[in-house]
């Protein structure tokens, strides 16, 4: 007799674990099935090289929903987020207006930098060095974005309505949103519309004149997308990243103690405490469908499990094309699923360092290395990096977001050594034929790694000599390891046509699927990707509601 559950959650990524925790908390007999030996999906910590531990994929956190932290009591389960202060952007020599100077008025290093920190006064003083107009604009821009994030945030907790449905009830939350929209000033309304429709560059260009400032701010508009900073729709991603908050502070980023696996472990611990069973190395091979409803799963080992509800946290394509019995879904729905765009565009290079690199613009070990280091020195550089990707090549001089977690959490490396995490864009999943085509990444992996090291070395020439080990994760590697289709870190492109009631399939944005009792709870669903957990939570609550259960 197969084992029987109330709910089976496929995939032990952060959303799967969140879902399981909520389902178990409501009294459902719940099991999580994870393919790998570690939990967390793309939020994992692994000891890649002896003594060096890495947040292999996802590396910072800010979007994790506060209500999840609260309701699942995650701090008690070991969640500890260490703040990451500021963004340091080294730029080319001669770009700056006034060279940076030390306390004695001597010029520091060569080249220049732009350094924004959470301390407003310090950031303003730094920006003044570049442009007085930009300082004025910055004073206005920051609060405006906070207002925007406050306004839009409720949408993260909404179950998107089906615009084609005749049932008016699911539209009610939209009415609330419309009313709060009407309460905004006309200028705020206009800015909100711009955020939903403009490119990150065009949006920022209305305020700022300093090129590196626009480049480095626009960078958060393209993270995880196959879009350039001038592509319409990227301003929304800018806002998506502004919505993060830690302890109530907007746009604060942090790194979890012990790496992003620390978050997954805390959620897993909360799920277990609520009674969920979690099994690793238990890959699901098939979702069993009969009579139009999902009834259980078969593991790769041949073992079968039955459940009243199946909740899939893997992406929509993997769920319906790979796991569901072929022929058991409506062809129309299937073609919509195949239409859903993934287009992974990013890679990750993790380095074990003998010592910290020196940035020529500001040599030495300083606070500037404790935050994010952004290799985004010019608008044209960002755009050219994207151009490479459009034609099927990885960026020769990519955009890189660097974090050195050991400066905040020394436990990640042996004493005196460091780990450095480099998020890289662009690395298109589909390579051009000249680079080996779809399977080309196995041939291009090291060339890509070299491009990343060389790019950073433009600003920190001694980096190559400090590297002990290097792990290069191409989009193909991300797909193979985590199961994320085409290596898309958000389980599907965050483009306008794939958001809200169109995510993942128009008419099926309410976590249910055309197969009865099969639910989706991963980043393929509203409100999209990032270590947010909102998808897993809303899906679980929606499932519980459908069963008449109190969450």
């Amino acid at each position: 007799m197969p084992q029987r559950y109330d709910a089976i959650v496929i995939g032990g990524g952060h959303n799967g674990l969140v879902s399981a925790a909520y389902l178990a908390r409501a009294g459902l007999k719940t099991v999580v099935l994870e393919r790998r030996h570690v939990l967390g999906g793309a939020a994992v910590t692994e000891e890649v090289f002896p003594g060096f531990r890495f947040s292999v994929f996802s590396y910072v956190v800010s979007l994790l929903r506060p209500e999840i932290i609260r309701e699942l009591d995650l701090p008690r389960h070991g969640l500890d987020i260490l703040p990451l202060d500021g963004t340091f952007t080294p730029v080319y020599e001669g770009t700056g207006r006034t060279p940076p100077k030390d306390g004695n008025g001597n010029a520091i290093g060569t080249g220049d930098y732009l350094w924004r920190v959470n301390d407003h006064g310090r950031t303003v003083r730094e920006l003044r060095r570049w442009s007085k107009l930009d300082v004025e604009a910055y004073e206005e821009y920051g609060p405006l974005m906070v207002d925007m994030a406050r306004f839009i945030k409720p949408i993260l907790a909404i179950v998107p309505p089906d615009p084609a449905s005749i049932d008016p009830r699911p539209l009610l939350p939209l009415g609330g949103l419309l009313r709060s929209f009407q309460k905004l000033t006309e200028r705020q309304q206009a800015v909100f519309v711009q955020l939903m429709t403009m490119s990150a560059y065009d949006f920022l260009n209305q305020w700022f004149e300093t090129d590196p400032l626009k480049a480095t701010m626009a960078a958060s508009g393209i993270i995880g997308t196959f879009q350039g900073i001038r592509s319409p729709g990227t301003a929304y991603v800018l806002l998506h990243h502004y919505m993060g908050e830690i302890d109530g502070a907007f746009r604060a980023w942090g790194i979890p103690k012990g790496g992003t696996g620390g978050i997954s472990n805390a959620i897993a611990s909360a799920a277990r405490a609520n009674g969920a069973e979690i099994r690793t190395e238990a890959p699901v091979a098939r979702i069993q469908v009969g009579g139009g409803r999902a009834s259980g799963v078969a593991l790769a080992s041949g073992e079968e499990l039955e459940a009243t509800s199946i909740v899939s946290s893997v992406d929509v394509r993997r769920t319906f094309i790979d796991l569901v019995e072929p022929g058991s879904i409506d062809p129309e729905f299937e073609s919509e699923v195949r239409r859903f765009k993934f287009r992974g565009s990013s890679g990750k290079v993790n380095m074990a360092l003998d010592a910290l690199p020196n940035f020529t613009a500001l040599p030495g070990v300083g606070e500037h290395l404790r935050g994010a280091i952004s290799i985004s020195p010019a608008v044209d550089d960002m755009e050219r990096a994207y151009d490479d990707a459009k034609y099927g090549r990885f960026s020769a001089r990519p955009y890189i977001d660097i974090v050195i977690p050991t400066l905040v959490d020394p436990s990640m490396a042996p004493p005196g050594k460091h780990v450095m995490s480099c998020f890289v864009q662009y690395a298109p999943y589909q390579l051009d034929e000249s680079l080996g085509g779809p399977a080309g990444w196995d041939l291009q992996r090291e060339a890509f790694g070299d491009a990343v090291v060389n790019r950073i070395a433009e600003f920190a020439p001694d980096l190559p000599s400090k590297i002990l080990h290097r792990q290069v994760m191409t989009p193909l590697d991300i797909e193979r390891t985590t199961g994320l289709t085409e290596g898309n870190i958000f389980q599907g492109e965050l483009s306008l046509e794939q958001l809200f009631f169109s995510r993942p399939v128009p008419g099926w944005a309410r976590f249910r699927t055309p197969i009865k009792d099969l639910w989706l709870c991963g980043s393929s669903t509203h409100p999209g990707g990032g270590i947010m957990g909102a998808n897993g939570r809303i899906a679980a609550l929606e499932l519980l509601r459908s069963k008449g259960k109190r969450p």
Partner: protein
Amino acid sequence: MTGPRPEPAWDVVVIGAGHNALVTAAYVAKTGLRTLVLERRERLGGAADTTQLAKGIRVPTLAHTVGRLRPSVQKDLELSRHGLSLLAPDVRVFAPATDGTAITLYGEAEKTAVGFRINGTLRARDAEAYPAFDKRVRKLGRFLDTIGRSTPPDIDSPGLADAMNALRLGSSFKGLGRDGSRTILRVLPMAVADLVAESFESDALRAALAWRGVRFGAVGPWSAGTAAMLLLDVAGNDGGAAGETVFAKGGPGRLATALTTAAQAYGAELRTGAEVVRITSRDGVATGVVLANGEEITARAVVSGADPKRTLVDLVDPVALGPSLGWRAGNIRTPGVVAKVNLALRRLPTFPAAAGDEAALRGRIVVAPSIDAMERAFDATKYGRWSEQPILEATIPSLADPSLVEGAKPETHVMSVIAQYAPYALRDGDWSTNAEGFGDAVVGVLETVAPGIRKLISHRQVLTPADLERDYGLTGGHPFHAEAGLDQFFLWRPMLGHARYRIALERLYLCGSGAHPGGGITGGPGQNAAREILADLRRR
């Protein structure tokens, strides 16, 4: 500042005499309102113009087709009675490739599909998919036409009319059916490259269809929102997937003449050489205009046919506008990327892909070899350069309309070429030193599909975005007055809160392409604006 105000000299004064402004003027004059149109140039009609390139050789100056002109405008203003006559060739689009193959699109989808099957350049799947694609874009286009004909609602304080409007839109949305209504929400923000890739495998066909999604915009086929641009081009005419190809007999200037005659017949007064330099206002209400010669003209309503940026930033008093609106107006995006190259040809050029079929050349000749080629051409603009391999839409209007070359040597033809991408803001040098270089690039591309054409050119005119700005008052040289992106669309064209044709001041109206539903020779904004102006003036 108290006391009775003097009675305004005019009911309505219209700034500019572009085609939309003439449409508005004609509609309001028709109701008996005293209407005055003021045009800076000596010619009326704005972008609907015909240029004499040489003796006996006339060519469409800017716009070359007029098939998007609203049928209701033609009918209401009796344009055919006023001399407008339209020519619609059977072939809508001829897209030749350098290898001698071509995509030919007709008005009828079935005929197009049959053509695909016969010449065998396309796989059967694409031929099969074409009629369904055509049907789909027509259906979505019809919905957008309903939107285009309506005034965007007032979301802050919706009135009864807004509610009626919403109901009408709602029912037309429901009319799309369950799939259609889901589809339109998904499709509008898409990249046109993705839209065409969902239906077709052939890159040449994808590119030929995607062209209308980027035409006149500072976008490439991979830019989000370009699918909406394609569908907007379908709205309100019988273009379908192929798009309209309709010529005004005698050149686009004839449309301007017909509109002028109509406006005058209804009683409007038209003045040329009358440049408006300021819009006057009192207590937030527009009161009239001031001309460059200092003359002050008062009116109950001021209507601007100029683009919204020029109207607000240059003409309205900054104090009356206020800093917030001033900032927003200054940020209206007007990135012009279109140049126009007009050629006189000694004889008809040979397109090997047409295989001697002269009829194939009567439509729009689109040279857009592939989606990537279009995207690469667009890439240049991001770095302030013009594309060395521009994307072209050429017409040879003299084939269907020999009157354009009456009086020239026999066999003479004219070719009108819309060429992208030529950004307004160049990084190196300015357009005065780059225009001929770009003209050469355009001819170079023509040579790839019509070898020998270079030698046939007897006269050449290159109009760059700088010319468009200087001569036609188009800010940034943008033919659509403001970029037709998702950020300047419907409720927020040109700006949220100012999309209902009433803009910035009371009694100030916008009636040009910068207003909903946007650019092109449609008369749409002008017709919609007239409706709102009349509603306001009657209410008083």
